[in-house]
């Protein structure tokens, strides 16, 4: 232990953070040396990984616009990370002014950063919480202020559920959120899979393991991820490689086929 107990582990910048490493992969500088080192190690094992990150980010934009088109005006983004370019409130509020967005992340630095960014934006807020505590999130002051649970809500769990181990039963957790939503709400999930990858991916997950990051990847199959949409109707084209979910242009797809299939993406509508 290099830090005193009164500084929580999440603020230990000698340990890489998922949120900041992702920002680095996207090309941002909202990160520290340890995050960049981890990003580079993983990228060296899975060349093109930056593209997978970018493709996921592009999916975020498409899915938010899609939900706005369906009439959704409020969003709950769980595992929002560092709010970088093209974040939910930016995209949603550009598409339909007045959209309300609640961000949730457990990384204290990411949350602090979100708070600083959202100063002056009354329609968006951030809550520091672990997705494994649905009650704390759904019952938070910010959720009560921003979200109307009688109306459809767009819930985003992007590149997040694979950090939740099986022991925590991610499927049951998703169900807890689902039960709080009005019919016609949407759920979008992107999730890393090992279905289409082999050695590179396990090297990369090993690198994350060795990095002492508190977060570890849990790869899941198409069937397992599909089951997380219990009680939702998957909208076309279903659960597919992230780049293949309603691409709007070449930038939505990575040039390496593997990188399009590393992450499954799906959107469900609550029945």
């Amino acid at each position, binding site marked *: 232990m*290099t830090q005193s107990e*009164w500084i929580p582990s*999440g603020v230990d910048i000698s340990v890489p953070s998922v949120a900041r490493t992702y920002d680095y992969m996207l090309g941002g500088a909202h990160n520290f040396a340890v995050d960049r080192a981890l990003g580079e190690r993983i990228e060296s094992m899975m060349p093109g990984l930056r593209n997978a990150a970018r493709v996921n980010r592009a999916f975020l*934009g498409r899915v938010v616009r899609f939900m706005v088109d369906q009439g959704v005006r409020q969003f709950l983004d769980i595992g929002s990370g560092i709010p970088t370019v093209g974040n939910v409130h930016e995209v949603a509020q550009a598409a339909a002014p007045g959209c309300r967005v609640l961000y949730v992340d457990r990384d*204290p630095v990411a949350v602090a950063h979100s708070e600083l960014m959202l100063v002056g934006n009354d329609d968006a807020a951030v809550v520091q919480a672990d997705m494994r505590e649905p009650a704390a999130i759904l019952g938070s002051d910010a959720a009560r202020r921003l979200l109307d649970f009688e109306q459809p809500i767009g819930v985003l769990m992007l590149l997040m559920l694979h950090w939740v181990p099986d022991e925590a039963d991610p499927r049951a957790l998703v169900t807890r959120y689902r039960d709080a939503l009005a019919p016609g709400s949407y759920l979008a999930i992107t999730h890393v899979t090992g279905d289409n990858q082999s050695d590179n991916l396990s090297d990369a997950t090993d690198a994350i393991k060795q990095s002492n990051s508190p977060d570890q990847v849990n790869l899941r199959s198409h069937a397992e991820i599909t089951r997380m949409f219990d009680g939702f109707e998957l909208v076309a084209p279903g659960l597919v490689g992230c780049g293949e979910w309603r691409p709007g242009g070449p930038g939505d797809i990575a040039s390496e086929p593997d990188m399009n299939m590393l992450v499954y993406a799906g959107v469900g509508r609550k029945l």
Partner: protein
Amino acid sequence: MSIPSQRTGATSPPERGRELLARKWSYLLSGVVVVALDRDELDREMRDRLNELCAAVHAEESSDRPASRAAERIGQQLVALGYVTEDGLRVTLDVLGKGLLGLAEFQPVDRYAQPVVAVLGALSSGFLAASRRAVFEQQESMQLSLLKAVRDAQWNLKESEARFEEVATSSASGILVVDLAGWIVRANAAIGDILGYTTEELTGFALFDLAHPASARALGDALGALLRGEQERVRQPQRLLRQDGDVARISLTVSMVRGADGEPGHFVAVVEDGTELMLLQSELNRQALHDVSTGLPNRQYFTTHLESALRRADPVRGISLFHLDIDAFGMVCNSLGRPTGERLLVHVSQRLKAVLAREKAMIARFDGDEFAILVENAATTPDVAATVAEINRELSEPVYFDDRGLAVSVSVGVVRRPPPDWTPEEVIRAAEQALRRAKSSGRGQWALFHDRQDADERRVDALAVAMPGAWEHGEVGVRYEPVVRLTGRGLVGVAAKLHWDRGDDPLDHAGCTALAERTGLILPLGEWQLATACGQLGWWGQRATFTAALHVGLTRNQSRDGDLVRRVRRVLGDTGLPSGRLVIGMPVSVLAESDAVDNLTVLDELGVGTSLDDFGLGPDDLAVAAELPVGSVRVARRLVARQAGGEAEFLAGLVPLARQAGVEVLVDGLETREQAEWWRAAGAVAGTGQFFGEPLPASAFHDPVEWYD
């Protein structure tokens, strides 16, 4: 230039060409950047930028006004789109470098080439400057976020008094401890400075006395909400009255500190004025380079320092790097508690400073209980042995925590005069390696790094890494070794062994398992070995007279593998070998672990034969054999070799004792007839080893049915 003029632009409007080029630009850019715009918006954006760019080229060509400013601005706008990075610039220059000179309006090429290059150059420099600014801004915003996170976390926590003191005195924020009735019971120096009182004076006040009348009510509401538990923390802008009558505009954060029972204890009010963020930031920067508990530089800082020290080192004396690890630190923490452990770390850091006070040295704390010392050697620097001895002598003086005296020792790995072209990482790695070696020889030891040893270890690492591929390519195979009855010399079993065929330098079973054990490959590899051998036995078993058992010895990791039973069942199910024909051996030492004991017990229940390998070296071995459901034990090769050297006749007594414990005794590594005879006389039933035959591929193995001496 000899490119002929292709001027056709007189008839076709420039818009068409630009439109196509802008789309191409946007299209290629969208594959490398992260922006908030959707495709159409990006198209429009790039079209506007291209129009501006074309105007700049025209302006540059006619040189009636300076165009570089406009082009630089376009570079800045590109950066402002989002995360554009160097890839975005590369794509831009690629597309525009070729595309602009292809436009009809920029013909003839030789007239426009120079303006296009100038404009793209200005765009690049604008891009670069804006990109640098963006990086700085993002980094700064992260620093601020980090600072905020630390601060938020601090006031969130229910802290012990001692911790609180520590934070309060060193904090640049004003901190007031206020009792439940609203009286200030403690104040730190910072709040005194803000308000112009001494801390003693402040402790006489009620918090409300300090609040400006206009905002006192908001403060009262906030404290009420905290008291009733409706909120854990409130933050509000406040006006406090200074001693000189002025008003201090500050930001006030009040939280409720509860006792261990969860009942309200007192309020903590944090007062920040505008300059506080800056001050706390510099403190945070210091913390980012220093370990919080000991105040020593951390690994990151140390590494940077090492880099410059390597460069400026005295060419003859060089530097020395010591990597220290406190012996049995885990035991201290476990028995006396983590706080005592932390105090011990502080103590060690102080003693290290004392020992090295005369040297030009940096002492750093690495992770956990590890320290590093960098000494820039001078003529008077004592040699390494003397320094280590001095450190351990210092530390052997007991230090008293809560009346308990504690003396510790450290193990040390040393790198002396590393070559100046080594990177800091290489030096630290070498020291770590030496430290590992020191630790393996016991407490309070030290070891010097030697280059050759490093090479050996690296060779082994390289082998371990290559092994999975070799296995896949069929270079790793299973070989079979006869297990022979010592009386009558009949074949009673076949032991399955791994073998890596590496041409002139093959690796035997022990080598293979040691490597695979390092990387974890042993689990799949071992299952494959078991399946292959069971299949082979089935093949031999088609002859009714073949009844020998299959002996498979497991490694430590295999023995405690949570999946072991499932793997064995699966193999038996797949190959159809009766469970009674399989004997699984585990190293006797691993049976101190409950996972291994569980595995052994379940295997026995399944009817699989069980055996203890490397038997006879530990004091508890006999007890293990007696208590667990074990069919046989296999005497360790080392003991067999000692007996052969004539130095362990007492071993003869081992066999009857084992038999009393209800197990049969097998012997490994028999090389001569004499040995086989000696062990037969001692009471062992069967053995393996050179004397009976080396492990061989299945095809070369004596027909086991025909086997006899």
